[in-house]
């Protein structure tokens, strides 16, 4: 997918995340479409670009969210960096493979966000994991699999292959 295509996809996901995703909230848990985008970029491009895009997407999410500035920036930068650790080659290995990668990265991302947000409080890590981190990652992975099925498959092809 070209850079322009990714930009259009990002704008689409950003609008959905701001206005549509809040409607899908269940008991304080909602999926993170922007994390799906960061993972998509991380899988398509080199680790350098995954990290950089993760940083800017996180920064933008922080600016338009009501929590501490910098929380999503850290979580998405690390997520963008780690994506390649889960898949060295193409993402186009099927919906379950993609969902699994999103779930694994989502666990790390949600843990970082909730851990930093609850820093200095008496919230138990176990409660945090079972109440928010794991359900949130699962919800995001389910949404990612729906996105995978809905989007054309060339979106998931690595940029290097396409540009050859």
């Amino acid at each position, binding site marked *: 997918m070209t850079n322009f295509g990714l930009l259009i996809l990002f704008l689409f996901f950003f609008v959905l995340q701001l206005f549509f995703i809040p409607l899908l909230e269940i008991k304080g848990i909602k999926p993170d479409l922007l994390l799906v985008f960061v993972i998509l970029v991380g899988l398509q491009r080199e680790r350098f670009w995954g990290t950089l895009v993760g940083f800017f997407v996180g920064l933008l999410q922080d600016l338009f969210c009501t929590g501490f500035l910098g929380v999503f920036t850290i979580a998405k930068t690390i997520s963008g960096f780690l994506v390649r650790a889960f898949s060295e080659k193409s993402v186009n290995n099927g919906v379950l493979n993609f969902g699994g990668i999103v779930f694994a990265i989502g666990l790390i991302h949600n843990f970082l966000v909730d851990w930093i*947000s609850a820093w200095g409080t008496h919230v138990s890590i176990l409660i945090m994991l079972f109440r928010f981190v794991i359900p949130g990652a699962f919800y995001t992975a389910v949404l990612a699999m729906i996105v995978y099925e809905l989007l054309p498959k060339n979106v998931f092809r690595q940029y290097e292959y396409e540009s050859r």
Partner: protein
Amino acid sequence: MLRWETHLHQLRDYILLFLLLSFSLILINLNSNPQVRWLHGFSLNLIGNLQNTMHFWGKVRQLENENDELRSRVADLTYKNSLMQEAYLSNIRLRNLLKYKKSSSFKLVTAVVIGQNYHGFSHALLINSGKKQGLEEKLPVLSSDGLVGKIALIGSHYAVVQPLDDVNFRVSAMIQRNRVVGIFTPGKSGKYFLNYVPIQSNVKKGDVVVTSGYSNVFPKGIKIGVVTQVGAAKNKLFKKIEVTPGVQTERVENVFVVLKKAR
């Protein structure tokens, strides 16, 4: 030279990660910086305008639906009764709001909750009043049922409220009956507690909990909730007091912001 460049190219991902994480950590530490807060407030205004527009169009659609329903009411007596009941309840709610505003000794600014944001243990409400309406950061936010929270972030026309159920919310509170003081905090799985109340204190189920006034943020005597359970904490030094707040923050629609100067 070429070998060094190759080595550096391999390291660039880690160097980039280090630089970006350093920047992010600095950003977290700069959350109280006025310039950073201005930038956050500015972006908040942008999103507030968009959400307000959606809220407005949502209301217009709601009014259209209501109009259709009113037309069909003529033919449908059962539906008419349910609508009348709805109007009656709405009337009671608005009367309570008006009565509270008239009887309150505080100078109040009314606002409508136009958005909510949940993420993990964090919860925030977006209201449609800001600096232009005379609001400032850390002002208390109430409803006719009691304390809702405090203003955490402010834009020119919108503000973010940190409600009672946000994990970082704390307020000095006391039992109205005998002035026993503690710290009101949200606990795990939707419960709320009045902490640090000595074990020998006389606290009973049904006691009303109000703000103590021992802070610059919340005036004395604002109702927070009612004691629903009293026990001993694990350390046996303090009581474990469970409180049910008067306000259900996820359902609140209209709020009052208390301005600093009393009438």
